[in-house]
């Protein structure tokens, strides 16, 4: 089952050109939806204004910062301070990338071939990763459930992305396993909602978040630190301050304070 291209069986009833056209249409919808989002919310204008304010007067080499942003913030989801959220995000993110790339390769390169190298396995692996990470997130990690104390099944606007992605992947895997026209129709419906719903969902965060992380790092390197205080005990001169008298013999690592417990005291 895991070694068979699930789209090969479809090529008898649906012409490969239609399948390929559908994928191209989804890519166009994501690009158009993101552009609409940028214009509608003015996020690009906000970004460049914020960039101008936070850049500072110091000359900053942008390439190392870009590499750092990609390595830490994008590839390792470095933004998250909660280890569980970070792991669930990594599972979902890499799963989604594997799943989408494998789908594109299977539909464009191996349309009629049941055997397609390692791509079917990657498709299944990616789908399973999205399913595990997304379900874990939706049932246990979602902040409106974990920190706000809202019921698990209270669906809101922000759930459009995660629910349509979970539905697309789960229905896709079920269709590949069990077959059947009804499952296929539901799979396509959920997938269309996922990619066509970009202006109303959180889908575009995958483009905006790296830009924000990059700007944050530039602000730190540029010396403005987003106007945040820069004094720290690491500086020997600061350790001599009168106010630091009581911390003279204290360890430099005092451990975790409020972060010892997860934020769910609702």
């Amino acid at each position, binding site marked *: 089952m895991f070694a068979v291209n699930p789209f090969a069986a479809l090529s008898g009833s649906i012409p490969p050109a239609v399948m390929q056209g559908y994928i191209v249409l989804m890519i166009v919808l994501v690009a158009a939806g993101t552009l609409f989002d940028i214009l509608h919310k003015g996020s690009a204008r*906000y*970004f460049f204004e*914020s960039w101008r304010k936070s850049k500072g007067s110091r000359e900053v080499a942008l390439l190392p910062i870009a590499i750092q942003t990609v390595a830490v913030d994008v590839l390792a989801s470095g*933004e*998250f*301070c*909660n280890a569980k*959220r970070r792991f669930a995000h990594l599972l979902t993110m890499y799963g989604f990338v594997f799943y989408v790339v494998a789908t594109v390769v299977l539909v464009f390169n191996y349309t009629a071939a049941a055997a397609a190298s390692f791509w079917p396995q990657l498709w299944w692996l990616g789908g399973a990763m999205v399913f595990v990470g997304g379900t874990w997130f939706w049932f246990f990690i*979602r*902040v*409106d459930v*974990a*920190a*706000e104390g809202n019921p698990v099944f209270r669906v*809101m*606007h*922000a759930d459009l992305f995660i629910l349509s992605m979970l539905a697309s992947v789960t229905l896709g895997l079920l269709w590949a396993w069990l077959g059947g026209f009804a499952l296929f129709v539901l799979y396509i419906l959920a997938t269309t909602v996922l990619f066509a719903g970009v202006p109303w969902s*959180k889908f575009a965060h995958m483009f*905006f*978040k790296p830009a*924000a992380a990059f*700007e*944050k790092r530039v602000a730190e390197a540029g010396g403005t630190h*987003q*106007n*945040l*205080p*820069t*004094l*720290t*005990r*690491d500086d020997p001169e*600061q350790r001599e*301050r*009168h*106010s*630091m*008298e*009581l*911390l003279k013999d*204290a*360890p*430099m*690592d*005092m*451990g*975790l*304070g*409020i*972060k*010892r417990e997860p*934020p*769910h*005291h*609702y």
Partner: protein
Amino acid sequence: MPTFVYMTRCDGCGHCVDICPSDIMHIDKTYRRAYNIEPSMCWECYSCVKACPQNAIDMRGYADFAPLGHSVRVQRDEKKGTISWKIKFRNGTEKNFLSPITTKPWGQAIPKLAEVPGPSKEMRDSQLLYNEPKWIRMDDGGLHTLEAAGLKLKKGVYY
């Protein structure tokens, strides 16, 4: 000066929702990021600003008395046990402060009150409050002073 959230910085961790004493920091239904649902009820305690691990929360000065770009920003460094403030005045003056928020590693000096025996009738009838005079250390060499702790009182404000 109520708080507001920089949506691009917030990662929706929920620490501000958890800590807000007015229960006005909530999670936005569209973007799943934190926001202040009722700025007029914010008492500017800075709890959420200090608790935010991403420094995504800031204070908004009311336009009628803070129109010229002042700012009060804070960074709470739990690991180092310090809090630092950067105050920018409207005339451009900038002041920086650094203070301790704990003197012992977190969680290691919590009084185990559950293990303390309950007060006797005599203690309940006394004028003294719980654990007086022990906790103000009057029975341990009298009133504790700066000199006794090896500190000096300097003129002016030293942070």
